[in-house]
């Protein structure tokens, strides 16, 4: 029996002193395919950010592969696909280069790419069906293809545990199908997958377990639900204002945001 990849005990997160997640216990066993679902503002993105160490827990503990997150250094075992509208930045970058950056978890400083690195990058490109686009600039790709590039980047590190934050948001059906095929391939290789999704769409067939968040707590944990069940009034937003500050408004480089420069809250 392999070690449990992910174990959150009594997790809580507060953002700017405001409790967002409370009392969350989540244990994901090796090889599971878990969908974190829930309405906007239910805390699913915050939870993934807490699980990856991007947002500190205010209480509770996260263990990755049996090691407390604060002492965890085995990052090549973890892959992360952040929620992004695209993979482009201020300077052109080729698809191959972006995917290759996912290999950094396994590379040592100032060393050239090894043959194993190159074949892992090539394999990741093939899994997302973009092997022939490696030399193209990422900005030339459609939004759905860029999302696949980000997934390939995570795959290049050959992670055992993969977090994906809304990989299908704003992606058209052909690209969702390509994504589904890529994740199916990965799952069949034995990877543990935790996926945040508002709606599953074609991914539904892969999901083995659904965790539904509601207002910062786990409202349901069990067999997968159909999309309409997730939006059942029991799981819906309780009030109209969103706690969804974590995902967008506070992210530094990606949204214009006017505030006093020393305003804290991290």
């Amino acid at each position: 029996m392999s070690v449990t990849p992910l174990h959150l005990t009594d997790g809580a997160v507060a953002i700017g002193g405001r409790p967002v997640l409370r009392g969350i216990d989540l244990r994901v066993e090796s090889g599971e395919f878990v969908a974190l679902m829930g309405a906007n503002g239910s805390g699913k993105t915050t939870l993934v950010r807490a699980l990856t160490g991007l947002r500190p827990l205010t209480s509770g503990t996260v263990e990755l592969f049996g090691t407390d997150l604060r002492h965890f250094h085995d990052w090549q075992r973890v892959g992360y696909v952040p929620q992004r509208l695209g993979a482009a930045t201020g300077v052109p970058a080729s698809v191959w280069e972006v995917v290759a950056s996912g290999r950094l978890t396994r590379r040592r400083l100032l060393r050239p790419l090894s043959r194993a690195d190159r074949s892992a990058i090539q394999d990741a490109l093939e899994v997302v069906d973009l092997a022939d686009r490696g030399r193209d600039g990422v900005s030339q790709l459609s939004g759905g293809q860029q999302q696949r590039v980000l997934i390939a980047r995570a795959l290049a590190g050959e992670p055992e545990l993969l977090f994906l934050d809304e990989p299908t948001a704003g992606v058209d059906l052909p690209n969702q199908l390509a994504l589904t095929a890529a994740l199916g391939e990965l799952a069949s290789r034995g990877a543990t997958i935790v996926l945040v999704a508002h709606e599953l769409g074609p991914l539904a067939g892969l999901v083995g377990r659904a965790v539904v968040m509601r207002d910062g707590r786990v409202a349901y944990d069990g067999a997968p639900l159909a999309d309409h069940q997730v939006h059942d009034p029991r799981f819906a937003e309780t009030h109209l204002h969103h706690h969804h500050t974590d995902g967008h408004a506070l992210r530094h480089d990606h949204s214009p945001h006017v505030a006093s420069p020393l305003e804290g809250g991290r």
Partner: protein
Amino acid sequence: MLDIFSYPFMQRALLAAFFTGLAAPAVGTYIVQRRLALLGDGIGHVAVTGVALGLLTGIAPTWTAVTVAVLGAVLIEIIRERGHTNGDVALALLFYGGLAGGVLLTGLGGQSAARLQEYLFGSITTISVGDVWVTMAFAAVVILIGVGLAPQLFAVAQDEEFARVAGLNVRAYNLLVAVLAAVSVTIAMRTVGLLLVSALMVVPVATSQQLTRSFRTTLGAAMVLGMVASVGGLSLSALAPAGTRVAPGSTIVLLSLAGFVVTWPLGAWLRRRQLQRAPFPALPPDETATPHDAAQHDHDHGPACGHAAIPHGDHVDYVHDGHRHAPHEQHYDEH
């Protein structure tokens, strides 16, 4: 007329220009990638205070400038990281503080504005042997780190959150880029001047990315372009007709900009062509569109017909007068 290149001061200036031109875009590429193109300008303004401090205390302005510029760069980075501010507001704060501080200190020190102006607009031809060595050493460090740590710096600038989950020390790399930028600003201060420093960090990158698709070629081409602009601009200013006074800083920056002006239309044309040649999505065609009888055309579409042939799923569409013609038996389907 070419005698001027045999003067030692000119050779020193050329050496300094060569190294500065290579180093500034090496760090500039990462700054542009993070959409902080004006960071160099912010640091340049802060360095004005450093120069003034040197003039006031009698310490060599290069050293006071590099110290203050590094402190300013680190401060900008911390404000950017800590506050939820976009980099630009943090930059603006430092801009004005740095410039005002420099002017105040120069006045207090009783130095004339002309002395400060050497640093504001460059004075590469007055550079000493010691300055050349310092410039070369700093430039070499910037280039080695900028190229050697390219995979790490690229990943951090590309996607901070991903880099953090990949186990990279994002803060350390961000601070490293800020410090490298400060060092580049200080060495470029003698070449093009503090007020034009950012041009040498940003313009070659903007030029090279008109024609490149990958990060590595952008970085390499930007370094070559920066070097050509520096050495070329300096030579141009030296070859100016007798009696005219042409500041090398201005010719370097203008030459660099000229490169951008030349490549921009080319880049725009290439991008447009790329867009036109992109394959159409392989969706099932709309069956309701009426097919075109091939007899209505004065030629058959083919590889040589001159109409753009765009891959569409398992066949090719020919773009003709805003239509997409797919050859099918004796007619063209409208796709």
